[in-house]
């Protein structure tokens, strides 16, 4: 059962069959209706039906009207040919004929004689009209009208039921040439000879198709009796199946809604109505014209209409099944939105917050007083009071907004790191006063915390400085006595080696203590900056000059790239040098021998970007962040010279002066990027 419901193939077949059965129902009903109207005399040929008679007479009387028009109103539906036997001959205009009703006219010959003028109106081009009139009576179907007498072998024209067998209708034209009203008139003064002539137009014409359809109907009278019930049963079955199965998919419990199902239902419905109207009316036009192309078109349009209806119906069913039908109305959504807003508004009144209540009462007061004063508006005093009341309300509101602004600014200051924020609590009232008290508390809390942390940083620095002093004194003795030992005349190579190690390590200890103090000072911001204008080019020239010998010892080539104009920055010159010195000193220690060192200075929108690149001698299996931490060195072994504080100091010093210091490691490429704010 569930498989039946989710089967895609079955649904597909159903979708295809449904329009076919519906079409069959339609055709069967048409068939039955046709038989009911025209099939009761047992005719098996179209020319024996009442319909044929109707159209036949309609065509003839219409042409009498045309002749009448031509004679009295100067219409040109007939064109005049050469006279025959002294009679004027008018031939039915071909152009007119083709524009004319596209049907039975193709198979009827007529000769209409105006008894007054003996003029002949015809659709036949022949030389001898008199003998042709005689021939007419030999036709399968003919209709002559002479002096109020009807001669015909068409059953229904003999029948009195046909009212217009002796009248014709014509339009009376007004001054603009428009038909203003239609007159029925007895056919008096015209003699008519006409016949049905199946050979008049050869081949398969539109009329022949229609005729074929009609004759099929006449010859298969019992067909709809089978087809209709079967079609109805199948249509209902398929429709019920589809209603049951639509929206269900394999493995899914819920009804899946698509794009179309999300369109508000009113819009979908409107689109359906408009499209269906358009296509259906075009289809009806096509059927009424009834030629090959229009009929094919009609069938096509029928299927298009089916698709439009199917899409709408499917979406409707899906919405209903998903219980979203009502919700999918735009009206519902808009209504709900309005309702929610209103509900929220009224809910806030229920909330227990005092500010809300106050706002509500204030607002109510404002409205009541305004309305009351407005009602008394015709007295001058009321106008003044009302304006006064409005001004007072504005003043109140403004005071509140200004208070809010003050608190906002205070909070912004705290957020931006200012800790000397202090709001005047007395200036504010109500909830703003409360808020200002909290803001002040937070500000002082922050301020205290910052003071505390600064104090602890300072204590730490002081501690490190003091400890380093205490280390330096014994270190002095160690260095000096090691130096003295070195100068002693010692023969033992082993002892000499030991002394060498002592010398190296004591020197390193010395460097370490110095760097340690500096690093702790710099990282705690405990340095006094002496900011001045500095020329970067000069700085690099000087620094490279300082390091030239050491670079040359390692065979390092320095490639400097700088803009041609002078670049000035604001910095403490000694600390800036310290940064570059640390970096250069690292390069002399860690760069690959005989490699190149690139120094690029670029002016970059408010920043001077200094980048120093070199190739590392050893593999750098360490992250850039780690490298900038204190006591970390690229080799990790701590064997080589250096304290591991150089980069940390350089970074701290850069940041202290407002710059940005970054290390980028890419394979063996070691790159330092410094962004320094331009003046």
């Amino acid at each position, binding site marked *: 059962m569930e498989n039946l419901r989710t089967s895609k193939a079955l649904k597909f077949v159903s979708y295809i069959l449904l329009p076919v059965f519906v079409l069959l129902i339609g055709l069967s009903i048409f068939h039955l209706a046709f038989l009911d109207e025209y099939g009761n005399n047992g005719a098996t040929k179209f020319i024996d039906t009442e319909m044929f008679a109707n159209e036949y007479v309609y065509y003839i009387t219409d042409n009498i009207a045309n002749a009448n028009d031509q004679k009295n109103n100067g219409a040109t539906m007939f064109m005049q040919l050469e006279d025959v036997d002294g009679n004027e001959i008018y031939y039915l205009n071909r152009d007119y004929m083709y524009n004319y009703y596209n049907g039975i006219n193709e198979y009827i010959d007529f000769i209409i004689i105006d008894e007054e003028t003996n003029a002949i109106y015809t659709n036949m081009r022949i030389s001898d009209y008199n003998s042709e009139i005689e021939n007419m009576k030999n036709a399968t179907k003919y209709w002559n009208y002479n002096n109020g007498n009807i001669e015909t072998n068409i059953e229904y024209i003999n029948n009195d039921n046909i009212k217009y067998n002796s009248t014709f209708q014509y339009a009376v034209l007004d001054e603009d040439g428009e038909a203003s009203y239609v007159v029925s008139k007895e056919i008096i003064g015209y003699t008519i000879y006409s016949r049905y002539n199946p050979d008049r137009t050869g081949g398969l014409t539109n009329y022949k198709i229609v005729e074929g359809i009609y004759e099929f109907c006449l010859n298969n009278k019992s067909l709809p009796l089978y087809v209709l019930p079967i079609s109805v049963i199948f249509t209902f079955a398929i429709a019920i199946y589809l209603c049951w199965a639509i929206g269900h998919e394999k493995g899914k419990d819920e009804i899946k809604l698509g794009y179309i199902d999300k369109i508000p239902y009113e819009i979908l419905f409107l689109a359906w109505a408009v499209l269906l109207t358009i296509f259906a009316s075009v289809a009806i036009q096509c059927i009424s014209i009834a030629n090959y192309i229009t009929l094919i078109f009609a069938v096509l349009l029928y299927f298009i209409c089916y698709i439009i209806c199917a899409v709408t119906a499917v979406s409707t069913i899906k919405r209903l099944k998903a219980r979203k039908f009502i919700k999918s109305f735009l009206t519902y959504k808009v209504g709900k939105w309005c309702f929610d807003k209103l509900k929220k508004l009224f809910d806030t009144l229920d909330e227990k917050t005092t500010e809300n209540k106050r706002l509500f009462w204030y607002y109510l007061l404002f409205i009541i007083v305004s309305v009351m004063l407005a009602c008394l508006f015709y007295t001058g005093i009321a106008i003044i009071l009302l304006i006064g009341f409005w001004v007072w309300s504005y003043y109140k509101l403004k005071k509140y907004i200004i208070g809010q602004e003050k608190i906002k600014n205070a909070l912004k200051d705290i957020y931006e790191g200012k800790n000397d924020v202090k709001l005047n609590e007395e200036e504010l009232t109500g909830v703003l006063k409360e808020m200002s008290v909290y803001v002040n508390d937070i500000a002082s809390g922050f301020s205290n915390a910052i003071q505390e942390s600064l104090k602890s940083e300072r204590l730490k620095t002081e501690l490190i*400085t003091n400890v380093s002093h205490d280390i330096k004194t014994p270190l002095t003795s160690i260095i000096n006595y090691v130096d*003295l030992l070195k100068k002693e005349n010692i023969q033992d190579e082993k002892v000499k080696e030991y002394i060498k190690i002592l010398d190296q390590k004591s020197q390193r200890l010395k460097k370490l203590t110095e760097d340690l103090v500096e690093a702790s000072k710099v990282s705690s911001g405990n340095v006094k900056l002496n900011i001045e204008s500095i020329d970067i080019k000069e700085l690099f020239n000087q620094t490279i000059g300082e390091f030239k010998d050491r670079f040359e010892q390692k065979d390092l080539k320095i490639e400097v790239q700088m803009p041609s104009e002078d670049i000035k920055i604001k910095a403490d010159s000694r600390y800036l040098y310290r940064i570059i010195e640390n970096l250069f000193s690292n390069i002399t220690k860690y760069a690959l021998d005989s490699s190149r060192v690139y120094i690029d200075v670029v002016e970059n929108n408010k920043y001077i970007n200094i980048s120093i690149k070199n190739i590392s001698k050893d593999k750098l299996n360490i992250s850039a962040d780690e490298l900038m931490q204190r006591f970390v060195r690229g080799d990790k072994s701590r064997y080589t010279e250096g304290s591991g504080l150089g980069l940390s100091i350089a970074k701290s010093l850069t940041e202290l002066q407002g710059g940005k210091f970054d290390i980028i490691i890419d394979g063996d490429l070691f790159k330092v990027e410094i962004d320094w704010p331009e003046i």
Partner: protein
Amino acid sequence: MYNILVVDDDKEIVGAIEIYLKKEGYNILKAYNGEEALDIVNNNEIHLIILDIMMPKKDGLETLEEIRKSKTIPVILLSAKSEDYDKIGGLNSGADDYITKPFNPLELIARVNSSLRRYVSFGSLKKEEENNKKIYKTGGLEVDDDTKKVLVDGKEVKLTATEFNILKFLLANKGKVYSIPEIYENVWKEEGFGAENIIAVHIRHIREKIEINPKEPRYLKVIWGVGYKIEDIK
């Protein structure tokens, strides 16, 4: 034979300094606190004092003040305190020089020699000659343009012609800061040519020759990112 008083509460340091300076041919007197030092100064003829700052009883700066009340002998402060304000404070209290611990023995010896030379052999000696000759001078640094000689604390230093010209230029305009292109234009008398770090190399070489500690120059100062100058020392 000059008498040098070494004062430090750390006996080993005093001992080490004694060894170094004795080798240089000086007579060493030792004290281990400020009071002892004052005693010795008052009772002996002392030519130079090496004074530690952090000491018990009377610290180095107090002792220095006491000494300065009656004596003009050169005093070199020796301290583990290496901050700028420590050095400035020490020099402002009347010290002639300031050495930080741990020190390089060679530097200590050089500074002792230099201070002594200035104190003993300098002074009024060459004053009359200055009028006749083209001599540029600051502190213990003298450049004689006639003989192309450079003297530091009376001791001759060998400079190359370029180095000499740069030094002479800076000394003639002492106290003023010159950038590398300016130095180039003034010494070579032509426009700078771009990669002027050669000048920086020359200046480093000059500094290595005329300064006791080139890293902390007394005469030829580097102002990083601005230029170079010769300090004007009276």
